[in-house]
């Protein structure tokens, strides 16, 4: 975990990178999220102060877009694709299996903070359906059966 001081510094650097441009708010939040894997409350407050944008505005953006998380995420983000092609090829059953094997519900993080489970609306890999993306790697044509082995590789 980053200390409060280093956290403040990286938020400052990110804002500087975008010249405190208010229209770049989404990009700034994306960079902050990439840095911390979620949007820490303190980071949002300091963006609000430094850029002179009401915190409610930032909160509106942070909650409107699905890519942002206000809760800390685990080391690995497991995203089960819920696009139409994946749905037709059994994505819902894949999600059930993930929930069972990780013992969490979609949107939650395991107690050991290793996995967060989320649903994503189409990764554009429809030809390989059903797919799951784990920490940026796409696993194609996944069957329920392969789930335990794949999760093990990320532990």
């Amino acid at each position, binding site marked *: 975990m980053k200390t409060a001081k280093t956290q403040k510094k990286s938020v400052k650097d990110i804002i500087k990178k975008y010249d405190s441009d208010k229209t770049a708010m989404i*990009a700034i939040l994306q960079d902050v999220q990439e840095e911390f894997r979620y949007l820490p409350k303190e980071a949002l407050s300091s963006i609000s102060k430094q850029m002179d944008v009401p915190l409610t505005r930032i909160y509106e953006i942070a909650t409107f877009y699905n890519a942002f998380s206000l809760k800390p995420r685990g080391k690995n983000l497991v995203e089960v694709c819920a696009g139409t*092609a994946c*749905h037709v090829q059994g994505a819902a059953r894949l999600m059930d299996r993930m929930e*069972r094997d990780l013992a969490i519900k979609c949107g939650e993080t395991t107690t050991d903070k290793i996995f967060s489970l989320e649903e994503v*609306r189409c*990764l554009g*890999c*429809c030809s390989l359906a059903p797919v799951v993306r784990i920490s940026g790697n796409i696993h194609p044509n996944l069957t329920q059966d392969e789930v335990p082995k794949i999760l093990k590789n990320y532990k």
Partner: protein
Amino acid sequence: MSKINTLEDLNKAAKRGLESIIPPKTKVMVGMATSGIASGAQEVYDALAEEVKKRKLDIILSKTGAMGMDCIEPLVDVLQPNKPRLAYSKVTAKKVPEIVDQIVKGAVNGSKPTYRMDEEDFICLNEKKPYFKGSLPKDLDGIPKISDVNFYKKQLKLATRNCGMIDFESIDEYIAKGGYFSLHKALTKMKPDEIIDEIIASGLRGRGGGGFPAGIKWQTCRRAHGDIKYVICNGDEGDPGAYMDRSVMEGDPHSVIEGMIIGAYAIGSSQGFIYVRNEYPLAVRNLQRALDQAREYGLLGKNILNTGFDFDLRIGKGAGAFVCGESTALMTSLEGKAGEPRAKYIHTVEHGLWDRPSNLNNVETWANVPAIISRGAKWFSSIGCKNNSGTKVFCLVGKINNIGMVEVPMGIPLKEIIYEIGGGIPGGKKYKAVQTGGPSGGCLPDKLIDISVDFDSLWNAGSMMGSGGMIVMDETTCMVDIARYFIDFLEFESCGKCTPCREGVHRMNEILRDICDGRGKEGDVELLESMSQGIVDGALCALGSTAANPVLSTLKYFRDEYVAHVRDKKCPAGVCKALIRFSISDEKCTGCGVCLKKCPSECISGEKKKTHVIDQTKCIKCGVCKESCKFDAIIVE
């Protein structure tokens, strides 16, 4: 690299590019679009690089985009001097040494390429260059030409002309294919109004779904009041099941950029934006590289091609909101706000981004522009059918044999896409429907299999073109579940601004969930119908007003499935968990024990070589037994 100012400079770059497209030594290309990488192309590329280094070979190794036939990736193309270009499919790192052996020997033996290409098509230049002279080498007898492969036979690639053919990291290769010559022609030989007239005459309609004539949009934006105007590329390909825009942005980013510069000149804009979804990191990287290259060549920035025209482009990244694919929401998002749509009576061509005239087209539309400018409106409008000129790219996915991205002339019968290009339904199952147009679209059942695939015919059938996703469904797909899936998607993605969409879609989802869970009541279907009409009439934006389409179209063609769910509490396709039951066929079960081992809830029992039994009280209906049974012995009813 020095800036390109004249036609001569452009020709020089093209010459360099041609030397790298058809080089005097062996070249190996790996399909490295997202789909290729997900199938293992990176490992293949690394293995190739290592093998080349180990054997100290003088070989060019390059990355290319996706050709379209995603079901045979990773794809490795080998091009040797004076020989056809050979495509090896489903290559693994293990197979690499053997392919390199073949390269060294210069002869095919062992694993055979899937198809060969005898010539390279330079669409924008209207010429074809053969890879070899004389007769076909004997060892290549029996390897089909790409034009004889069913998947490619009826295709015509315009928007995806360079995808999978050129190195997406090389601007010179793009120029060699005729790229930026259209821009040169537009800036030096055409007046803005002439360009707009050409686009109008070509009949190009917006490929993002609406099908609005692109030229008319440009003209309205050009005539709109204001000094500052914007051109925008919609790369927020949110429709699940469609990924052609990703393929173009990844595999041929310059075609989009060139189209946009031409459009900007015609409209009178000096700043443009490409809005790309958050889910497409590779597209962002490839576009960014292409923008930097174009700037370095002086094709973006001040005084482009020494004509005095200034224009620059910036990428805006989405953050995962489906509604941002809608034009007004996209513009609000580009302004750095929550992407809520605005009422449609205010036209974005007059009051768009920052309230200034803004012209938005999607990736595929922009990619068509350079081809139209170089070959002319007459040529473009000769392709396709009445009022639907040109081609359309589709993503053929779901329950279909040849999964992939296809580009076909408009007006092609659906049947040819499904059965000839797509190769029909796997496992001898029956075709049920194809879903087009994303969540706002609809389903086309078997009786419409002969329909002409164009904007107007699909619209009249209660579906729409959308961005071009085609999700094929067979008898094991439940249409009520599909409707529920889309409504659930739309409820989640509704921005919440207007009540009909926010509340109406939510209520419809509740009813559909009840129906799928076996709690459907008489009258539910009729209630869904009347609610649908309310949403169509009352919603604010295009997303809301088409939100009921998945329900309306499945009701229109598959009403009996709704009735079976509500009245008989049965799911005929065997999908809706609450209405189905798994059992094992006495006849087919061989007692192999695979299902017993794989069942996560340990509810299957039975001795070896004897019929197994499922304990219904413990079964969680996960379907693992059905997925793993090799003898098709699991019955779902």
